[in-house]
């Protein structure tokens, strides 16, 4: 059992369980379990098995597979440009027939993370400007493809994850600041007007009560109305009767706030803190630069999802479509996040194995 990070898995499974309950609460209409909840449970089972399988691999295996994985991820994003179908005004999904929908931008987050970690972990410990640019170039390709889907939130996560890994690996702060500034300045030129609109309505949702502001106002109202203890699962009037659009996917935290109250909302925050804390602990204990960077990337990815998603629902950051990990409805995201945990578990396991190997060595010499 030492080879498995128990607190990490426990907090993940707790999030999955609670998330599935909330999902059922907002999607079910009768006493029956909703089809969304069933599909979500299936995705969670697949994701858990995938995570356990990946944890058996040594971290170096990810580095070796990084090039084909990266190419696979980018080709998925290219494919969605041509055969993807449009929903909610964006081309993000590929139909897999009876298996449902697949969102290539989700695994792209993970494969980019592995590719950047591999690039930065190779060679000398000092990260040169050249390698910084290389890492940014690696990130730029999927970022550009995702921005044109358009999907601002995922692109922000990709850029943020890459940036976190660059900071940890000691890239020149001046260079990073310069690149960040130019990126922020250039961003509006690549943004769709609806994205610019979203950014402005975030500042003043009441100016646009029937458009994007509607979603933000309704979500905030739902969260606030939950008060301390919430209205109870299946009992939140706004969550139950469609007053918050998308409250089974990106806005699921509004249902948590309304039905479970402050207690439930803070409970979710604490569970995410434990989960991410476990990942950071694994990163800090990493034996190689690759291990540290892989775990750092996953921690950054999860943190960005949680902070941006919850911040959006409660009106702290602009509205961008991002799922809440292990809670929002969406198979691609659930499986990708489980796979990312698999990478972290693999790092955790390799550290334990190294210790065991070291112990055996000592024993032999003795």
């Amino acid at each position: 059992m030492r080879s498995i990070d128990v607190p990490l898995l426990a907090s993940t499974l707790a999030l999955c369980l609670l998330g599935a309950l909330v999902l059922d609460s907002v999607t079910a209409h009768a006493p029956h379990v909703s089809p969304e909840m069933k599909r979500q449970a299936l995705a969670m089972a697949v994701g858990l098995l995938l995570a356990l399988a990946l944890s058996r691999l040594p971290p170096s295996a990810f580095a070796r597979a990084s090039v084909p994985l990266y190419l696979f991820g980018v080709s998925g994003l290219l494919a969605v440009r041509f055969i993807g179908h449009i929903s909610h005004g964006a081309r993000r999904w590929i139909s897999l027939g009876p298996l449902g929908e697949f969102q290539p931008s989700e695994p792209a987050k993970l494969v980019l993370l592995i590719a950047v970690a591999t690039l930065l972990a190779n060679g000398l410990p000092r990260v040169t400007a050249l390698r910084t640019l290389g890492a940014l170039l690696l990130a730029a390709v999927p970022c550009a493809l995702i921005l044109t889907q358009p999907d601002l939130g995922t692109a922000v996560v990709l850029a943020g994850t890459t940036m976190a890994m660059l900071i940890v690996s000691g890239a020149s702060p001046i260079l990073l600041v310069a690149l960040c500034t130019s990126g922020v300045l250039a961003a509006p030129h690549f943004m769709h007007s609806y994205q610019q609109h979203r950014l402005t309505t975030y500042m003043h949702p009441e100016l646009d009560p029937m458009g994007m502001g509607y979603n933000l106002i309704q979500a905030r109202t739902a969260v606030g109305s939950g008060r301390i203890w919430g209205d109870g699962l299946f009992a939140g009037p706004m969550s139950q009767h469609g007053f918050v659009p998308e409250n089974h996917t990106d806005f699921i935290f509004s249902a948590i706030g309304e039905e479970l109250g402050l207690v439930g909302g803070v409970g979710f925050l604490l569970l995410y803190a434990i989960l991410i804390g476990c990942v950071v602990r694994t990163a800090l204990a990493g034996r190689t630069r690759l291990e540290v960077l892989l775990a750092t990337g996953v921690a950054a990815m999860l943190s960005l999802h949680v902070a941006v998603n919850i911040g959006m629902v409660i009106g702290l950051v602009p509205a961008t479509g991002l799922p809440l990990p292990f809670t929002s409805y969406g198979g691609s995201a659930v499986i990708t996040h489980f796979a990312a945990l698999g990478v972290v578990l693999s790092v955790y396991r390799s550290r334990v194995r190294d210790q065991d190997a070291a112990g055996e060595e000592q024993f032999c010499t003795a």
Partner: protein
Amino acid sequence: MDVPWTWRMRLTVLALIGVWALGVCGHRLYQLQAVEGAIWQRRARSNTILSVPVPPPRGRILDARGRVLATSQPGYSVTVTPDEAGGDMRLLAHALRVPLLHIQHRIQRGARLSPHDPTVVANALSSVQVARVATILPHLRGVHLQIRPQRRYPYGTMLSHVLGYVGEISEAAYRRLRRQGYHADDTVGQSGLEQQYDAALHGRSGAENLYVDAMGRTVGTEGSIDPHPGYDIRLSLDMDLQAFAEQRLQKTLDELTVQNGETTAGAIVMLDPRNGRVRAMVSRPNFDPRQFARGIRQKEYERLMTDPLHPLLSRAYQASYPPGSTFKPLSASACLQSKVCTPDSVFYCSGEYKGFHCFVRSGHGSIDFTEAIAQSCDVTFYQLADRLGIWRMDKFCAAFGLGRPTGIDLPDEQGGLLPTPGWKKRVYHDDWYEGDTINLGIGQGTLLVTPLQMAVAVSAIANGGYVYRPHLVDAILGPHGRVLWTYRAKPVRRIPVKPKWLAAVRKGMEGVVDHGTGVAAKSTLLQLAGKTGTAEAVPTVDNPQGRNHTWFDSFAPAPHPQIVCIVLVVKAGGYGGGVCAPIAKDCIEYWWTHDAKH
């Protein structure tokens, strides 16, 4: 170990930033849910709970024997909430078979008055309409089928002017009454008793709190306040007598239509002279209040408004006519009291007095006071009026209640016209001449009275001088028939004429029926007294032939009067004794055999 310590340090810093971000989120949650929670909760509830007013059933109108003259029964209505209206309203127009414009007007009205409340688009749906609307409801937003009380008048057009009609509250009235709990689509009385007693009949709306989803569809209920039904009102009139009087008047009017080639109007008022209670009140032509109850169509309304006979106008209390000779008992009372003559005075009628002719051109010769009334001798009353003078005449007329509304419990009552020298100066800029007074003595000239005023005046003569306010409603009944209020009649005033003079006038009126101008009213069942009247009309646009208005005032039984009956037929063309006296006789006989408590 190939991981530099700086990496771990920078990672720790990033992790601390993450902790800070989670802390910010947690603080914000605390702010929203614990500090501002109550505000957001109220906002969420107003989002999701819709309070729909439930109209109260309107109180019933009952006759003296408890028969239902007006009641409410549930019917289907289509309502639209303007705030939530969505979808193609052409579907609704087609399902109801009404013009789209009508629906749009209704929604616009609702939007102006109270956009959050449902507004009625169509009332009293047929079962076919209900079925068609039900099939299209899923395609429309904010449209509901609602069961609402609808006004029913079991007696149809009978008593229509007294009952009045109901209709949707007008925009002006709504703005005035909204604070008293009225709603924009409330049904209120628009005329007659329905209007006069609306406060009692209306009741108080309840409310149903509905849980609605974001599409405005009802998903459940959350408590409700029951509506408070309106009170019933009970009238003093008996529908049997009323129905008989209506048919009797209609029969005469039908005969006159054939005879004159022109339809005309008429009225009957029957009062109890002992207390002013109304026993019957008829006006023809009439209208159908059921058209208003279900929402009158534009075409029907235009027809009512453009009809030259004005069917909406009650001839009993909203229209005034010259009283003709029925005025003579009033001026006779005034003359006796003023010592202008005595019951024993004898007059001489040559057929003419100061240029004014008696209707009997050859004259009545010597005639005493009683016979002057019985034979309706004009010359006698010319002389009496001349001697009495306009000032004293006006004083007594005002005491009888002429020239102002009687104060019956009905809206928009007319007060007629009592001419005075001051009035003539003001309106015609002319002096009052002797001839005006003489002409007034026989009820001609500019004097105008309503049949109801005449009934009150005759009641005063019949009951020994007491003027009562005529009254229709006897009692207001609460739930389960509990009596909340009863009408207690008491005289408004006493006319300043001694009872012995009134008895002399009554004797003259007995003579009218016994052997005078009104023998057509002579009954074998009981003794009637009365006075005929034939008001000569100058040919006008309305009345090109210049046909006479005919009257017959009567009371019975003559020794102890219990009923007063006034009959008016407008533009009848004959004489009061011929046209109206038989109607009065039949009505009083019917009352005597069916209604009177011996």
